[in-house]
């Protein structure tokens, strides 16, 4: 029971931290480099806890993100649903990829996410963002091993403490 609670704390805590990181200010030059933390953390949990992170969860999570930072209700929900769907579909393979391959898969996922974002914004009549828009998936890929190892380590520790 205690262990479950600790796991739950880690789960929701990581999601909240992802939002905070997402909103964290950075110097102007670094801003385009900011990875899509929310997406990274969701990818991790979709790989590790698929019984908890379904499409519905991704949808609600995205809605929360929209309320926090969004411009159009449903935009992030759509992005995260697409993200979660692809991850869950290829979960069995993603799980056993070596780290570099996993990182490449994350890059593909994040690039796809950018395309989805661009489509949504295009339809809602927003201006096309500059080319720096496409840098974030790369930094997301670079951050993926750290996110993965950190969360994995925390999970194992929580389990070990029991």
């Amino acid at each position: 029971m205690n262990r479950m609670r600790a796991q739950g704390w880690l789960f929701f805590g990581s999601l909240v931290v992802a939002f905070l990181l997402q909103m964290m200010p950075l110097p102007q030059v670094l801003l385009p480099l900011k990875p899509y933390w929310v997406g990274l953390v969701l990818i991790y949990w979709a790989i590790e806890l698929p019984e908890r992170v379904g499409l519905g969860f991704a949808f609600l999570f995205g809605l929360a993100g929209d309320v926090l930072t969004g411009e159009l209700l449903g935009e992030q929900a759509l992005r995260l649903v697409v993200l979660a769907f692809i991850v869950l579909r290829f979960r069995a393979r993603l799980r056993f990829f070596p780290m570099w391959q996993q990182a490449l898969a994350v890059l593909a996922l994040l690039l796809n996410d950018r395309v989805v974002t661009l489509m949504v914004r295009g339809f809602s009549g927003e201006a096309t963002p500059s080319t720096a828009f496409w840098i974030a998936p790369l930094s997301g890929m670079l951050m993926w091993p750290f996110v993965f190892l950190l969360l994995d380590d925390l999970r194992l520790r929580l389990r070990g403490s029991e």
Partner: protein
Amino acid sequence: MRTDNATLFAEGTVSTLRLIVYLALAVALMVLDHRGSYLELLRRTGSAVVEPIYRLAAFPADVARATRTAVVTQDQLAGENRQLREALLLAQARLNRLDTVVAQNARLKALLDAQKNLGLSVQFSRLVDVDLDPFRHRIVLDTGANQGVEVGQPVIDASGVMGQIVEVLPNTAVAMLITDPTHAIPVVVERSGVRTIAYGSGAIDRLELPNVPISADVKVGDRLLTSGLGGRFPAGFPVGEIRSISNDASGMFAAAVARPAAALDRSGEVLLLHDQAQPYGPPPTPPEEVGPPADLAGPAAGDDPAAAGRQSPPTAREAGVGGADDGTRDPSRHPSSPPAQNPAAATPSPTPETTE
């Protein structure tokens, strides 16, 4: 680690049907929100949760800044102090000169019995250092509806116009910067009086003026001021400085690039303007009983309707944020559209602020 081989080949819990349902749901939400702006409503309703999260997200940056201030060396402090003193001296000198101009202005206006110049009524506000989206130029301020902030208020800093309030929560406000790709601000070239519109470019140090007439007198280095057209931004605030001019693709217009005057990426404190913009151009016809003497009223009365008619229609389009399709998302624009506002602003009585 839980092993589930069920998902190795079978679809398991993720069926395409559910994907489609959720996608449709998301799209429906977006369409509804695009029409009705429910997101702002939702955010305002949930502001008890949203606002603390903004503050929490800004907390590390605040701590970092506080630390930097705390450990800054005396040398740096002395240098900064000297700089500030010089700046203050300069500002004082300028203010002194301005005082005489203001006095002169007041005299002339009294002479013309024109509408009263609104005193500059400002509200101090601090940035909450969160980044909502790097590709949308928004800033979050720590004052909101409870402090009297309203949608549409211009935001300025010491050196120029920063943007305008687009969303208000109880203790937080979100402002759109003038560099946002969906923002446009009517400007006038200080030296020659050429009027045009400066659009945001999406880059924090760049404004675009895509349709300057080729024959217009615009040079590199010219300062741009708000023109006051459109009724959103009061006239006379610095907007930027022309950096380069080139011909646009069609060859019909010159396309200029300007650098914003305000420190858009550095300002920590901003001012919110409270007064409404003054109508541009000559004052509209005053009511008969408060009008100037008959010999002065004659030419002015003949001139005004034409001028007002010439200038109002374009300003309605120029004023707001965003392109035409953005219209439904910014309810703020409508209350301040100039045709509705000019008559109200033109009469001297409803302006509580006093003249300088």
